[in-house]
């Protein structure tokens, strides 16, 4: 799952190194605009719909937490 998520994100956001930090949002590596793009790409690929309450920095801070989040709603 993690690898698949990584592949999709890297394809859509070639400039972002998702493995570079465990605090992607807090370190300013990804902003709200990228989060929106990430949700859109991942929802399309995995056919999931994320409730707004899950869209918090903690869920997007690392590749692991993003993969976990998607898995939860599959």
């Amino acid at each position: 799952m993690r690898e698949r998520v990584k592949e999709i994100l890297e394809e859509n956001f070639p400039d972002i190194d998702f493995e570079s930090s465990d605090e992607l949002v807090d370190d300013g590596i990804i902003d709200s605009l990228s989060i929106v793009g990430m949700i859109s790409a991942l929802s399309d690929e995995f056919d999931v719909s994320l409730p707004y309450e899950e869209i918090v920095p903690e869920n997007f801070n690392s590749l692991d937490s993003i993969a976990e989040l998607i898995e939860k709603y599959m």
Partner: protein
Amino acid sequence: MIGMSYISFSFLLFLAVLMTLYLLMPSVRLRQIILLAGNLVFYICAGGRSLLAILIATTFIVYAASRLMGRVYEGFESETAAKELKPKEKSQLLASYRKRAKAVLIPSLVIVLGILVYGKAGKLIGFPETSDFSSLAGAGFRAVMVPLGISYYTFSAVGYLLDIYWRKTKAEKNPLLLLLSMTYFPVIIQGPISRYDRLMKQFGELPGFSYERVTFGLQRAVFGFFKKLVLADRISAFPAAVFGNIQEHSGLLVVLAVCANAVHLYMDFSGCMDIVIGISEALGVTLDENFSQPFFSKSAAEFWRRWHITLGSWFKDYVYMPIATSKFMMNRTSAIRKSGKKRLASFTAAAVPLIVVWILTGLWHGTGADYLLWGVYWGVLIILETAFAPEWKKLAAYLHTEPDRPLPGFLRMVRTFVYFCFGRMITALGCAGSALIILRRIFSGSGAREFIDGSVFTYGVDAKDFAVIAAGLFICFLVSIWQTKMHIRERIAKMALPVRWAVYLAGIMAVVIFGVYGPGYSASSFVYGAF
């Protein structure tokens, strides 16, 4: 005491009495009670007396709605605890509970936001303002009542209700803590727009006296008084004089007035924030920062992450993200992407929520056409920047420039300041064509004569004032630079006693000697208090 503001003598007296009583109290409970009494006294003295009932009623509605939604979700939690559910089943069950929470959320939002919208819309169509219910009824409801601080506490209250609905925070059971947050005197008039969950947590554990905290807080407040009384109130006369008679002026003089107008707003608003955040720090309550050296920003989007931060982050959390991640938007952009138009899909995903946010931001500041235009102006700038980011990058590579190197970085800061000044021009004259009128005057002559014959010093700011402003701005510039590198107050606290006290006294003396005081010490009111 009517019309007490943060820079009135009566406020200093109020603060001295409140702080003494508050810091002497031996328990959290007593400190809460003293603080609540202080909040109410402040609200009444600041001119909110006749409409205090609306603020209290709003608090009651927010409390009732938050508790009802809290109870709905407690039901969900106990049901999920009793059954073993898969995540998907859990989210389906949650959807049914959410429907029930929504039945509470919508009416409460309609009432809380309705009072704000009624006031703003009423003003737009020219209804007069009234301060009591009987004259409202007497006017056949063709008047508006605008409670003091409504734009600020409404936003905080709406954010709190939405956070509970989205289960990002839990409903507070103690109504006293909510009442303390909704009436908290440092934030009620001009913000920062607080997140009530964070405030209530702090009100629940109000700390006692700490020498370091109280002195640090008061030092910051003194710096705020310096920005407001020495700089903002001294600068303001100049743009007021030039804009007040704009057809008589041209060129450089108008450019200087536009820059002065921008710097005045920063000193006025950020000075007020230093005062209130400092006072709150002395009381043991940390408020969210509203400014982070905004004039060092290299882009419009970055500027709005560093200027009026709490307003921007409110719009991001409660308007931008919910729209951008809504099913409707996701489906639309997904359909566009699947049709092969990837670029258009990401443009739509960024642009639609941004334009909604900026129209609302404009309307929050004022309901006239000039503010609407101002909102659209910033929206378009930010969309051009963010949605076309790949194109800008390609352009920079083509031109062989590295945008983050010192010189291009500095030029980008200057450009951001120009963006800001232009934005100010849109609303400076209070009419829809404001920016055009000012631009026309800028290009209608050199305006150099006033600088050569010295008449530039006759527009409310004489040569001595210019010198004080230049020195004051230089100090603020140094402080801004230092702030990016160190904790200034901690650094000063570690200095030898005579040096330390020389710095403190110099700060206080600067405010006392160079502050601009009107008759009977009623310095001019803050710009952002009117929203």
